[in-house]
């Protein structure tokens, strides 16, 4: 483990049930402020990998350490890690019975014990940051997909996380709304946030990723700087994948 890594995977193995070996011997180190894009075919384990970072998934072998905290059976460790890691989902997962503002203030007020007024101020700041402050009093289902995903990002940011996980944040969006979400993510990357993004937006990967990781069948096949990854993929499997998603 290198001293400065904020996320550290060491020989991590995970199975679904007895037969499905979803993560195989994963070794990964992420430095603070690093932006990593993870791509690969569906079922390759990329979502499972980032979900191990905030303990939404358990693993059976190896060690996952986040900011020096070992994620295992310890419930306290899980709580501590989740306080530092924000997550954005493909399906937004906003709470439909709460207004946008209530979605944002819920965790700061109940988990962070923040007074309501302060939580609302912070929420409005984050909504301004994702350029959606005027929708604060609406319910999530009254917004477009792109707006909902920006609310979801703002909700995660309200807890001032050190690390942000993005699990295919643009895959459920209409094509015209993808860019408004990517713009927010690019802005976030510019602020020095540590980011792990599972995405197939290769333009985004080229623009902001420090490193691109390609996964297949539960393994990390290849990882490289974004430029090298696209210009000179080394592995045949990577070349095959890139030719399929880039050439049309």
């Amino acid at each position, binding site marked *: 483990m290198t001293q400065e890594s904020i996320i550290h995977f060491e020989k991590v193995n995970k199975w679904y049930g007895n037969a499905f070996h979803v993560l195989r011997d994963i070794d990964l180190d992420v430095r603070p402020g690093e932006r990593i894009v993870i791509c690969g075919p569906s079922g390759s384990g990329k979502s499972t990998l980032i979900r191990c970072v*905030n303990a939404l998934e358990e693993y059976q072998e190896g060690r996952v350490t986040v900011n020096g905290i070992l994620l295992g059976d310890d419930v306290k460790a899980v709580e501590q890690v989740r306080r530092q890691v924000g997550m954005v989902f493909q399906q937004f997962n906003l709470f439909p019975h709460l207004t946008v503002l209530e979605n944002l203030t*819920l965790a700061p007020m109940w988990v962070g014990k923040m007074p309501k007024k302060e939580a609302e101020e912070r929420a409005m700041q984050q909504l301004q940051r994702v350029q959606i402050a005027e929708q604060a009093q609406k319910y999530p289902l009254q917004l477009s997909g792109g707006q909902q995903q920006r609310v979801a990002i703002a909700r995660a940011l309200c*807890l001032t996380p050190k690390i942000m996980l993005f699990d295919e944040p643009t895959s459920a969006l209409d094509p015209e709304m993808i860019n408004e979400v990517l713009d927010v993510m690019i802005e976030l990357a510019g602020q020095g946030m540590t980011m792990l993004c599972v995405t197939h937006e290769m333009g985004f990967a080229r623009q902001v990723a420090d490193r691109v990781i390609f996964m297949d069948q539960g393994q990390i096949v290849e990882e490289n700087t974004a430029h090298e990854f696209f210009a000179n993929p080394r592995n045949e499997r990577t070349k095959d994948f890139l030719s399929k998603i880039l050439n049309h």
Partner: protein
Amino acid sequence: MADTFTPVAPRPAPAAAAGMSMWLRRNLFGDWRSSLTTVLLLALGVYLLPGVLQWSLFQAVFGAHADACQAARGSGACWGVITEKWRIIIFGRYPFEEQWRPEVATLVMVAGLVVSCIRWFWRPWLALLWVGVLAVFFALMLGGVLGLSPVRTDLWGGLPLTVMLATLSIFLAFPLAVLVALGRRSNLPAIRTVCIVYIELIRGVPLISVLFMASFMFPLFMPQGTTIDVLVRVLVGITLFAAAYMAEIVRGGLQAIPKGQLEAADTLGLSYWQTQRKIVLPQALAMVVPSMMNNFISIFKDTSLVTIVSLYELTGALGLALNSDVNWRPFKIEAYLFITAIYFAFCFAMSRYSLWVEKQLSVSRTR
């Protein structure tokens, strides 16, 4: 040269044909089948209506005259039975001179229920209000305070008993049902097993058996000398019975919550109870309003079964009023129509309220 996109200006929808004749044609005489049905039903109504009016109004006896009623038997209704017996039907065996007490007590409780249904009153102090309502209800019914003469609970009866049993068992069963439903989905095997056994056991027996157990068998297990009032035992019986059914309704709602909601709550660091209270239950309970209200209505009517353990609620009090009186015993139908109207008023109100709640919840969530 590039084309520019100019949207067509929106126009109002064509006016729908309105008017009485249009409505009739569309709804009652759409095609020959619909017309035939309309005509047949109309004919049936015209055929039955005179008889119904004759029996219930023109030939009916309204005064409390037993002889006149006997004379009209077979041709006219004897509403006199209600004039004569309504106080026993409504208040059961409660001492006659003291019957203003159950009257006021019931009005207070019904007022409490109505108030609780209005959105403006959904504040924390509503709980305090209910402490007051229950205190007033039991003080009036039991007596022994403020110079009111004590009345034993086995003398309670009629509508006050029905309203009290239904209200209290619903209020007590609801939180229990939520806990049991959550318990049935718990990760802890012990809790899960207890909840499953409880639900399956209760659902496996009829309410009558539960009431029998509560009334006759339970005292056998109590240590010598200690007694629990039969009313309390029956109330606990109905509550446990109702909670098992409600728990399954709540579980249906819990299962409909997408997994992503729980993951989002986990990610934000909410604890199990915070997640249930803030995220899961508000959505799950909103989804099950119709079937939950269905169950409430069911409980309200099921209270009539407590007659078999000698508690004379509305239905029981009706039997009490008529069975021992040879003069009025033949006119049960009229008396039953009377309590039918009372049951219907309560159940219909609940049903309409349920629709209103559904509407309230849906406007707040979608566009």
